[in-house]
């Protein structure tokens, strides 16, 4: 890497890593600065669910495109990335949720994403561990699972093979036009990408991002208990309503035979301690759907901070005109899914190429819904 890189990427979470990967492979000299260690913050607190969502046209465009970009890499990914195309099974508790599932299946299918509605009997056949009495479900077979820190590492390694450099344990104190002030001194550069997740507003005041805390539990190895990533359809209500706290049933079988159990959402600033009350609610919700979970041994519980925006879409694009500052942050709970689409979109915009999806909904300075946060 030359003395003054073309681009400094701040943050080596999965989003920063994907930006570096695309920029370096497009011939840019890239320096990635990470305050802790690569993939060690929100990336390590994500489940690694690769999921198409349809909260908005823009969200569908970014998630479905990102899933395709990852699927194109499936032969290249090493085993430690633990990439498995298990599919998502969205569970409907009642007829109204099943009706919503039917509508989603139609929306997905008409846009080229496979999706099928399951009745109660098919649901029980697909996932016998689910409790009886559920109305059915929606199966999206093209969704997948990865181990996010390993995918981040793989992207950074690929960027480095294309000439990028990654420096960890480097704190960036300030972004100025044409340079960043880091704990090791000033680094002159062409452009800067702020990909610091929920910490991004510390360096770029005014970014509409708040930390939204989540809890995860991982069990010992119990292979075969479930096959899909199983999520309640009510998850969307939990994820998309900015209430003080909410929980939803979300269970993911890992390649190791372990089960990852989520999810919770809280607005409590940067308080990282496990909240026993929320944890209990989250696990009760999980055992409501899969009673057998109650007998399993959990081996670790941890928390992380999703970078949440008021309109539930990430910020991807230039910040103030002429500043040379670009933003790739605010992915809330979808950063693992949308990292590749984000990196590709951002690099196309930075290099003046025609992007594959409409960048307008992701413009960082867009108007946000009032009072949403």
């Amino acid at each position, binding site marked *: 890497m030359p003395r003054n890189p073309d681009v400094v990427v701040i943050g080596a979470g999965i989003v920063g890593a994907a930006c570096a990967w695309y920029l370096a492979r497009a011939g840019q000299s890239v320096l990635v600065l990470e305050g802790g260690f690569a993939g060690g913050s929100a990336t390590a607190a994500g489940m690694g669910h690769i999921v198409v969502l349809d909260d908005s046209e823009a969200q569908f465009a970014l998630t479905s495109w990102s899933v395709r970009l990852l699927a194109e890499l499936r032969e290249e990914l090493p085993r430690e990335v633990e990439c498995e195309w298990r599919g998502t099974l969205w569970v409907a508790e009642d007829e109204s949720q099943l009706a919503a599932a039917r509508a989603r299946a139609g929306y997905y299918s008409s846009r080229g994403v496979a999706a099928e509605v399951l009745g109660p009997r098919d649901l029980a056949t697909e996932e016998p561990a689910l409790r009886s009495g559920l109305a059915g479900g929606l199966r999206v077979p093209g969704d997948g699972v990865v181990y996010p820190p390993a995918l981040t590492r793989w992207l950074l390694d690929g960027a480095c093979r294309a000439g990028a450099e990654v420096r960890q344990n480097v704190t960036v104190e300030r972004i100025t036009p044409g340079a960043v002030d880091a704990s090791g001194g000033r680094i002159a550069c062409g452009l800067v990408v702020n990909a610091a997740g929920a910490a991004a507003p510390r360096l770029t005041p005014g970014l509409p991002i708040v930390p939204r805390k989540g809890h995860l539990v991982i069990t*010992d*190895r*119990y292979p075969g208990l479930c096959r899909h990533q199983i999520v309640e359809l009510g998850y969307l209500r939990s994820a998309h309503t900015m209430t003080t706290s909410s929980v939803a049933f979300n269970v993911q079988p890992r390649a*190791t*035979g372990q089960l990852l159990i989520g999810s919770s959402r809280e607005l409590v600033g940067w308080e990282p301690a496990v909240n026993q009350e929320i944890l209990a609610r989250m696990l009760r919700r999980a055992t409501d759907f899969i009673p057998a979970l109650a007998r399993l*041994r959990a081996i670790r519980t941890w928390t992380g901070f999703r970078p949440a925006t008021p309109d539930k879409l990430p910020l991807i694009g230039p910040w103030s005109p002429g500043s040379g500052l670009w933003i790739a942050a605010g992915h809330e709970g979808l950063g693992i899914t949308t990292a590749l689409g984000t990196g590709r979109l951002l690099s196309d915009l930075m290099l003046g190429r025609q992007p594959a999806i409409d960048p307008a909904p992701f413009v960082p300075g867009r108007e946000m819904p009032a009072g949403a946060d």
Partner: protein
Amino acid sequence: MAAPVEIRINGVSHRVPADVSLAAALLSMGFGVMHRSVSGMPRGPVCGMGICFECQVIVDGDPHRRACLERVRDGMEVRTDE
């Protein structure tokens, strides 16, 4: 010493002393491999005091029991993950 007890290991009956840990009983019967790591490597007891989790076996259908912390009981069904 108390009378020996009978336990079943992978479906086969064995008589073992009554007052020993399951890990000791398994080792004395030649069952050094008690489970497999994620990558399939053989694992057996290292610490003998419940810390290393390398002696996990299935006891009466319950997985992930640490053999070093279990006392043998008459009629115990044990499966090692060989």
